[in-house]
């Protein structure tokens, strides 16, 4: 950007800041992209005032490249603004309008300040500058969005791989959703960590919630089983739906020595047997229920008499 147009920009920003600010905020509020539900005029006014102050400082430094050190304050302000707008759910164009709406009021003043012949050049230079700033906000906005997405992915991954204790020494790992490499890593780490913490001997991997099993998924499952075995814990794979059993055989996946069960209940029964426990019906259970019924009836009768 030529120095004389910086100079005139500097002049305008210093001389006419109040009116420029009002015009700018007006054009933001009147733009189609204005979101009265997400922001308000006082807030916009505050942002715009801070931006103009920082812009004036940057322009005064005389630097033309907006990535240079003189523009650090402006970039920081736009970073914060764009990221916070990304999190609030603004669209990219709504965010970029913050900068682009400054064009009209600024150009009007440029034109008034210099002659018509010279105005075109200066408007052009200023236009370039504002475009770059606008694109910068869009870029930062996009990065902010991506950060949100990455965080959500991580949360989803951690949320969807809980390791639960069914009984002392028996862990269960209900897997819900597709089992890709990244998730296998998380699942494996969680499971092995819990095996160390709880000293469990048996882990039940339940794949009822896994929509499809292909060779890669099967490979991941077998890896998890092998890692648990190296730690001294046996794994049982349960929740295999008929469709998946067919797929596994058709694909020629060799499950080897891994114990598989159709339901988690069967797997739990085997697990209990392995740790030396058994489940039996309590002998007095059915009679007690009758007694409970009888006492209820008596209580109702008592209430009836009262």
């Amino acid at each position: 950007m030529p120095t004389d147009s910086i100079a005139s920009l500097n002049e305008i920003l210093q001389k006419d800041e109040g009116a420029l600010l009002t015009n700018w905020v007006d054009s933001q509020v009147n733009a189609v992209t204005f979101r009265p539900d997400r922001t308000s005029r006082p807030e916009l006014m505050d942002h715009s005032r801070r931006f103009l102050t920082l812009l004036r400082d940057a322009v005064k430094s005389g630097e033309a490249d907006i990535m240079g050190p003189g523009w650090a304050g402006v970039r920081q302000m736009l970073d914060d603004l764009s990221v916070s707008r990304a999190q609030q759910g603004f669209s990219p164009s709504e965010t970029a309008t913050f900068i682009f709406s400054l064009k009209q009021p600024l150009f009007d003043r440029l034109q008034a300040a210099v002659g018509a012949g010279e105005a075109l050049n200066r408007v052009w230079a200023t236009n370039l500058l504002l475009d770059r700033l606008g694109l910068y906000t869009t870029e930062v906005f996009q990065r902010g969005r991506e950060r949100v997405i990455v965080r959500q992915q991580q949360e989803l991954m951690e949320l969807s791989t809980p390791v639960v204790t069914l009984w002392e020494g028996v862990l269960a790992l209900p897997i819900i959703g597709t089992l890709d490499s990244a998730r296998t890593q998380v699942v494996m780490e969680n499971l092995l960590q819990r095996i160390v913490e709880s000293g469990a001997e048996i882990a039940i991997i339940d794949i009822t919630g896994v929509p499809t099993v292909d060779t890669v998924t099967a490979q991941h499952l077998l890896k998890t089983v092998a890692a648990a075995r190296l730690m001294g814990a046996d794994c049982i794979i349960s929740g295999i739906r008929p469709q998946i059993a067919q797929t596994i055989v058709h694909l020629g996946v060799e499950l080897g020595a891994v114990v598989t069960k159709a339901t988690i209940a069967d797997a739990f029964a085997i697990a209990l047997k392995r740790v030396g426990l058994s489940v039996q019906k309590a002998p007095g259970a059915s009679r007690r229920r009758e007694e409970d019924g009888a006492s209820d009836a008596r209580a109702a009768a008592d209430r009836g008499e009262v």
Partner: protein
Amino acid sequence: MERIPILKMGEYLLVTIQVDMHDRLAMSLQDDLTAKIVSVRAKGVLIDISALEMVDSFIGRMFGDIAAMSRILDAETVVVGMRPAVAITLVELGLSLPGVRTALNIERGMELLRGLIGAKGRDDAGSA
């Protein structure tokens, strides 16, 4: 040259690996262990690797080899105390050590070893 101590406890041998294994050390462990199994007529070998933080494919294979050698010399091998990171590394290297018995800690490992040797003793007595 440093060596990994091999302790004798009754009819079992106890190997605790507390340093990072390198290839020479692994080879000398194999030599020492096989010699010791023969000389004390050990029935079981317990290898504690709870202090081992890093493994490569060579060390991973060594465990398999030791187990196979001991079996030939009529001794059962149990590897105990593997860390999660080590287990994941071995599996990613494709070494799931199918011939090696594992347990979570020394106590469990000893229990497993007693069970194995007891069962084998009964088998031998039955067939004789």
